[in-house]
């Protein structure tokens, strides 16, 4: 259906676009037009790509025509391609939102080029089948996010960028350390090759692998913001412009989650009773502490920032339960949650545009100001809180169903409690911003033009809620591919690999 | 690879000579009383010491056919060009930065000139 070579476009398309836009960084119309066109085009392409993979199986690209494990390969399986589709969906929404909201000075200072580099890094991280290459793409998305976070050089931005930079660079260093240990022990960096070698050995590497699993968990967990590594997140994610917050909050931490997902299903599956049990404990603590933090806040964007953490907990829970159903659940969780989170951050941006603040005490009564806005918020927020029949409900439903099936009632209970507290904090935002006294200055900004991006995201939230079976069947295929590493290994190393 | 003993001896002597001057420069750096005096040691002895070592490698590697020795020559030229410029830059910076001569110096034309040109 889709030529395998075209999958490179999800990585190289953005970078060529970025270079082009950087060259013409003062051309206003060009910047916006090209950005929208390219993001829409890549979005469409990503959907076609996903369909193609669902139909024809995993696509493997050899960079430079070198076979694994010698060259770098890109692997587009359902999991990674779903992430790419998700990324591009959010990207389209963010670009649509940015067209109207990005300050002219910021646009002239490489807002769009940096954003496309960010997309390149994210897509690269999702698609790569090589751990060192994953490191490289992590760095790509990191430096793009550094630059975007600091864009504007306001004191608050610079301050938070410092935190973000320091923490992430530390994590990156340990990523390198773990790669060093990995190469020393396993003699390869290719994920499929690693998985293959681990499958072929009989336990003598297990202690080393457990150590490695923990270092990788530290690295990816820091990026994903799980307990006890999440402390850095809320501050920096509060700062940037709303469109970026949406992308950061929606997609960036998910790269870390994806990496955990990938490594803990493909590579570190030697001793789930240690590694995955640890994931479960961390997931529970992440879920609770994140939402506790959210409840303690009085600003919409801050509440949303803390919620990122809490929701990460659910995803890790799905991975930690480590059954095909729970993995499908984790992937299913990812999609609506990312959509809702991004939509909510964009809505926060609209609120900011309309009133100049997102603080619950400074704003109020927006419901009467814009019914579409408040409806969109409610749909996204209730989805996040897991209220049926919105997509978020089924996310929670599937993960918890998986937990019930293997009798992990405690974690199911914590998951439900987390859902309740999420609802409480969403209601807090609703009460503070959309209901209550009409406070806060109203700026004469037409809000309707800011909404198409949000509408797109909410459309999918509602759509998935009404037809959960579609995404679930995708998630099941993904889970089937992920649960049995042999599928992945055979796709990468060739079907005639010796077992 | 084997080398004729005369080359072996030449290289060893040059190396040891180089080391000797390098160490001399460093001793000067440690012993002399102010930064200007110390720079005398490093700009001359150290440069000379490196030159000795480079010469050793020039002969050695050229004999082994690994190098025509032209690049080593380039290094020597470069070192002899840069060491004084560097010393000059530090000296003027130190002087203007207020690092005084040891014991105030017996003669200081520079100070006089600076004072008159400031007026």
């Amino acid at each position, binding site marked *: 259906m889709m030529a395998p070579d075209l999958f490179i476009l999800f990585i190289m398309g953005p970078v060529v676009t970025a270079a082009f836009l950087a060259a013409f960084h003062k051309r206003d119309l060009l910047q916006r037009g090209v950005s929208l066109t390219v993001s829409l085009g890549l979005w469409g392409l990503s959907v076609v790509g996903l369909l193609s993979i669902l139909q024809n199986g995993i696509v493997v690209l050899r960079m430079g025509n070198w076979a694994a494990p010698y060259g770098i390969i890109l692997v587009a399986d359902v999991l990674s391609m779903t992430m790419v589709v998700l990324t591009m969906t959010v990207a389209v929404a963010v670009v649509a939102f940015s067209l109207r909201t990005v300050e002219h000075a910021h646009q002239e200072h490489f807002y769009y080029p940096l954003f496309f580099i960010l997309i390149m890094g994210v897509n690269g991280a999702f698609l790569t089948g090589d751990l060192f290459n994953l490191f490289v793409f992590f760095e790509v998305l990191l430096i793009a996010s550094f630059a975007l976070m600091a864009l504007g050089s306001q004191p608050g931005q610079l301050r938070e960028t410092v935190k973000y930079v320091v923490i992430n660079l530390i994590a990156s260093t340990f990523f390198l350390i773990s790669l060093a240990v990995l190469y020393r022990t396993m003699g390869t960096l290719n994920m499929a090759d690693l998985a293959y070698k681990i499958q072929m050995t009989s336990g003598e590497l297990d202690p080393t692998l457990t150590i490695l699993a923990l270092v990788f968990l530290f690295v990816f967990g820091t990026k994903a913001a799980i307990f006890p590594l999440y402390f850095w997140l809320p501050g920096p994610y509060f700062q940037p412009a709303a469109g970026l917050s949406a992308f950061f909050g929606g997609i960036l931490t998910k790269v870390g989650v994806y990496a955990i997902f990938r490594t803990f299903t493909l590579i570190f599956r030697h001793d789930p009773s240690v590694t995955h049990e640890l994931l479960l404990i961390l997931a529970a603590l992440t879920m609770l502490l994140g939402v506790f933090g959210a409840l303690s806040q009085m600003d919409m964007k801050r509440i949303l920032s803390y919620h990122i953490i809490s929701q990460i907990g659910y995803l890790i829970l799905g991975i930690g339960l480590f059954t095909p159903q729970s993995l499908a659940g984790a992937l299913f969780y990812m999609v609506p949650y990312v959509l809702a989170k991004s939509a909510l951050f964009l809505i926060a941006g609209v609120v900011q545009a309309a009133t100049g603040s997102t603080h619950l005490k400074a704003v109020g009564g927006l419901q009467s100001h814009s019914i579409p806005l408040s409806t969109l918020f409610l749909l996204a927020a209730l989805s996040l809180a897991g209220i049926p029949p919105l997509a978020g409900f089924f996310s929670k439903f599937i993960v918890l169903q998986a937990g019930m099936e293997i009798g992990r009632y405690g974690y199911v209970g914590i998951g439900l409690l987390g859902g309740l507290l999420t609802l409480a904090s969403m209601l807090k935002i609703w009460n503070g911003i959309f209901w209550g006294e009409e406070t806060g200055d109203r700026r004469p900004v037409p809000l309707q033009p800011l909404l198409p991006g949000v509408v797109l995201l909410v459309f999918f939230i509602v759509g998935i809620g009404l037809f959960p079976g579609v995404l679930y069947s995708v998630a099941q295929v993904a889970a089937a591919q992920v649960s049995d590493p042999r599928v992945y290994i055979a796709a990468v190393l060739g079907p005639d690999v010796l077992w | 690879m084997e080398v004729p003993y005369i080359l072996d001896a030449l290289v060893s002597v040059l190396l040891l000579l180089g080391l000797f001057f390098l160490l001399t420069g460093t001793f000067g750096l440690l012993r002399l009383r102010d930064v200007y005096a110390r720079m005398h040691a490093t700009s001359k002895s150290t440069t000379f010491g490196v030159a000795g070592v480079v010469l050793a490698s020039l002969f050695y590697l050229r004999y082994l056919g690994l190098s025509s020795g*032209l690049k080593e020559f380039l290094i020597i030229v470069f070192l002899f060009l840069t060491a004084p410029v560097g010393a000059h830059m530090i000296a003027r910076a130190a002087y203007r930065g207020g690092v005084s001569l040891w014991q105030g110096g017996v003669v200081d034309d520079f100070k006089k000139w600076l004072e008159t040109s400031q007026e």
Partner: protein
Amino acid sequence: MVTRLFFNIILAFAWCLLQDEISLRQFVIGFLVGLSAMLFFPRSFHQERRYFRKVTLSVQLVFFFVKELLIANWTVVRQVLAPELKIQSGIVAYPLSLQNDVLITLLANMITLTPGTLSVEVAPDRQFLFIHFLDVDDVEEEIRIIKDGFERYLLLIAQ
């Protein structure tokens, strides 16, 4: 134009040095490389004339310098390793006859590399070169060597 050509030829030779191979092929490549470097990184050049005389003088200067250098290092070794340090140092203004910056640079460098002296500063009007003397007892002797030795050669080259 001539200066540039001369410089370009120097660059081509430098290329051959780097390649460890002096041949026409490398020279041509070196010339092209040097040309492109000069095209993409254009900088102004001083006018230079009478190369051959200058080259001869330069070679003489090099030999003179190497001789002084050897003496210098021995002096420094003696001073550094002497059991007692009884050095009276100071900065002396040396009146310059040269006016060309490149040649002043060469002079200053050679002064630094010779015993007991170190160039500290050139006056902006090129009137003086300020030299740090490790031992001010030898000032006259040193200044004579500079005046009659290094600076004389350089003045000849400058003409």
